[in-house]
């Protein structure tokens, strides 16, 4: 189980970092979301991995037999914060898309990029026509 969890955290983090480094706002948002998932899993596993143990200590049970409740509380807080921040970021990215007329993170699409986009549009038109 340890390998599986650490592998998931690693893959999520790597994907998140890769997407965050992209030049368009949407992959960046996705990347940040994946990073948030990764860190939530990571925080959760910091209470050590246990199966089938209660988070509330029973007086009659042995002291060691419980799962650490604190990381669960931390994850809950982190989820709420990450959720709110992602919502804010999406709205901001949309606002930037509207005001800057580009979804590039630097906002200023240079001529090459615009030309490239026009080519894509031109190329896609005949395909559409053919499909129809």
């Amino acid at each position, binding site marked *: 189980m340890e390998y599986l969890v650490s592998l998931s955290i690693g893959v999520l983090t790597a994907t998140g970092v890769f997407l965050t480094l992209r030049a368009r706002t949407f992959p960046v948002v996705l990347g*940040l979301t994946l990073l948030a998932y990764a860190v939530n899993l990571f925080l959760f596993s910091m209470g050590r991995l246990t199966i089938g143990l209660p988070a509330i200590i029973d007086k009659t049970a042995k002291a060691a037999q419980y799962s650490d409740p604190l990381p669960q509380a931390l994850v809950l807080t982190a989820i709420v914060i990450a959720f709110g921040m992602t919502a804010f970021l999406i709205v901001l990215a949309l606002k930037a898309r509207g005001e800057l007329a580009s979804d590039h993170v630097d906002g200023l699409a240079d001529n090459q990029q615009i030309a490239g986009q026009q080519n894509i549009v031109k190329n896609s038109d005949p395909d559409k026509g053919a499909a129809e």
Partner: protein
Amino acid sequence: MSHLTAWPVFLPLITGFLLILLRGKDIYYQRIVSLAAVAGLVALAVALMAVSLPGEYQVYLLGNWTAPFGIVLVADRASALMVSITAVLALAALWYAIASDTDEKGPHFHVLYQLQLFGLNGAFLTGDLFNLFVFFEVLLLASYGLLLHGGGRLRTRAGLHYVVINLIGSTLFLFAVGTLYGLLGTLNIADMAARIATAPGNNLGLIAAAGLLLLVVFGVKAAMFPLYLWLPGAYANTSAPVAALFAIMTKVGIYAIIRVHGTIFGSGAGELAYYYMPWVLGLGLMTLTFAALGVMAARNLRGQIAYLVLASVATLLIGVGLNGSSALSATLYYLIHSTLIAGAMFLLADVILKGRGAFEDRFESAPEFPDAALVGAVFMFGAVAITGMPPLSGFFGKVLILNAALQHEWVVWVFAVLLGGGLLTIVAMARTGSTIFYRTLPENPSPAVTAGEPLNRYAFLAVIGLFLVSPVLVICAQPVTAFTASAADQLLNGTAYIEAVLSAPAVNQSIEE
């Protein structure tokens, strides 16, 4: 247990809620409530300072849970000082925002402003690492709103960068906190410092890595090289009162390094004692180099002042990195000076920008604007203060830091970078002053387009008020340095901090039992 420690955190929060209820009413009511709350915050900060002055730790147990199980707020001399600086700066910036009608350009300026203060004061007073993360998020979310206040293309673009880099910073913060919790089993800063001494040897590498990860996070907030690239754009493009208030935001990062790293990895940490210091000093020197070049290369006044903020942050990092009682004391002295003067410079840049009309704050010749003599004299004063020339407080701060550097093994580098950077900023500011105030055009090329607004005297009061701190800091240098020295000693006395936090008693224990 006095409630005084908690009030600087809760007053802005309660005021923020009240202001939401006043939504839709005349902005006049919001202004009264907001201004009264910030004035009250100044009074609270003074009271907190008076209580902390004798050197006792004011520990406040939230929910009456004793540390390390509950969250604690801790006020000592350094945190009382930070709360006081925040309150004074907030009052001046809010006064400017109201007098110049900046607050009318968006619906929620006052609410966000109060929540920003809530986050700032919380970050300065908390004694719990995860709670520090939460307060960071509060102050960041408020700052996102404030940064975008008023709108505009450049502002949106700078805001996007600012938000994304801070979200990545928050993620790294959680990774670092999680690692530290997994290895030390606690989130209370004092308890962490107590446990790190007895941590098993094979965990030390991971703990050190988590500590450096935290340094990266605080470095993002403090705009440390190479993580400063968001700062010039964000600070230069936002509205003036917000930029002035943000002068304290970078200092949150510096304070967090002093508090968190200084306590956890302090002299009691065994093998890891002060292992992060070479990083702080080295990166501080790099930051100052790039900041001085940025000051030289800036093409408008607000961009230049943003780089001057960066230079002041770098100077503070150098002061922290020199690691010692006298260096820390000098850092705190320079922190008071640089925060308030940088705030005043952003407000002054806005005054100049409005006076020059269509020429804004670009470095090009414009016709002479109304009251240029008065504004120019104040600019001269501010430039002398912020570049660190005698006789104002910037000079004293730098002398204190250089003096503390004499015993350090990197003394040559510190002197070379600090003095060389100072020279470059002086040259740049002299050039700025002569471009804006001396090399004026003889007549107005097209009066209809370029006419600026006349000087707003009420708003200008905030600028002068903040600048007056500089001569006061010089005249009262003896008591102020005595205070910063005692605050530095208290910060370096980690065992007393641990003892005070972990032994703070809960109230009414007998009734509960």
